[in-house]
């Protein structure tokens, strides 16, 4: 069963995912860029898999490519979940 994403739950899931991938928890914020967190394209595919697991939201390669910040990812998940 998946749940609907709201800004809070999406942020929580993405934050947890990033930390699991090895990002520094102290540096994860809405404004942080993936580049500054040393999150690359392979990491973003894993984040997409986690998000799909949790919210049933499918993020394609093109969606993920456009993401620059953690906030971008949260907003996209919430929008796609709506």
């Amino acid at each position, binding site marked *: 069963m998946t749940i609907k994403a709201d800004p809070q739950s999406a942020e929580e899931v993405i934050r947890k995912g990033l930390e699991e*991938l*090895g*990002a520094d928890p102290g540096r994860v914020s809405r404004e942080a860029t993936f580049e500054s967190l*040393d999150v690359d394209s*392979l990491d973003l*595919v*894993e984040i997409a*898999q986690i998000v*799909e*697991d949790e919210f049933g939201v499918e993020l394609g390669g093109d969606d993920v490519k456009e993401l620059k910040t953690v906030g971008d990812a949260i907003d996209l998940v919430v929008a796609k979940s709506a």
Partner: protein
Amino acid sequence: MSRRAVITGLGAVSPLGVGADALIDRWSRGETGIVDGDASCRDFDPLDFLSRKEARRADRFTQLALAASDEALGEAGWEEIPYDRRRVGCVIGTGIGGIGSLQEQSAVLREKGAKAVSPLAVPLMMANAGSAAVAMRHGLNGESFGVVSACAAGAHAIGAAVRMIRAGTADAVVAGGSESAMTEVAIAAFASMGATSPTGISRPFDARRDGFVMGEGAGVLLLEEADSARSRGAEILGEVVGYGASSDAHHLTAPDPSGTESARAIRMALEDAGITPSDLDYVNAHGTSTPLNDRSETGALKLALGDDASAVPVSSTKSVIGHLMGAAGAVEAVATTRALNRRVAPPTVGLERFEEGLDLDYVPGDARRLDGEHRLHAISNSFGFGGHNAVLCIATA
């Protein structure tokens, strides 16, 4: 003046512990790293060497290779790369590569479907991952690749590296082997073909031997071109003075019982080193503890060394760490180099019952002092499923 490959750094992670010294110290004391048939690297924690992110982006075989290469570069005093990075190569052998990651992702595929398979699966399991990761970690821009030749891979990797240095295409090469394949599938597969010991005891050359004990680990030699190493003031630990390789072209897994081609590889290594059998001070045997290998290897040594075969001490590292497969040749080259430096032949631990025809001096009991003050020479044998034979000849500085 021809170019030569000297050894300036050693690194090893083995069932005897983390570090080349743990390997040689404990083996020389006759201690074993095999506990109840288990030859894993229990003391190894990847997070001692890697960040969490680095660790999850590397299969365990790659983590082991990174730890061993850190040690080798550290021993050589390479805080900065002392050469043009484009002329520093990296060759890491493996028998299987990231089979643990492959097995995990196969389970994910079955349970959750194709879309859940990790994007890291390929870079984790590819057999060249060890070489790629070591080159990336240290910024080595020279030729780098993996070597895959089953249980001869570590020795082939070092042989290839020696040739790169001699040919002038590299000034230094990080060379070795790494393996971590103790997964359900691999354990079942080796058992199914009757290669591994049902009793979980590794006792090479003993009449009761019944197969090898699968182990994991990594070994790395830092090789540098001799003149360059000397001019930077490096401490020289030894030299890979010879390399010989051949193929049985005989059977999928069984060695040619005549030992013809493995003997030829041994002779090639000696010729390459410019020495004769009587110059050999020590033989580090492949010595797997399988009924077939230990007999055919004994035959090959007799064929290659003639009457001198019975005079030289022959021992098997696998008696204390099991069979590290693609890492074996490299870890054993590390052990051989350290043993020569300490002028000691470590024992074949557990050898008690002798078998008709297996009549070389296998150093049963305690480690033996290698007498004299001369430059010491040893060979380290590695033979792989598929009939791959690779022999290194190593000398003291």
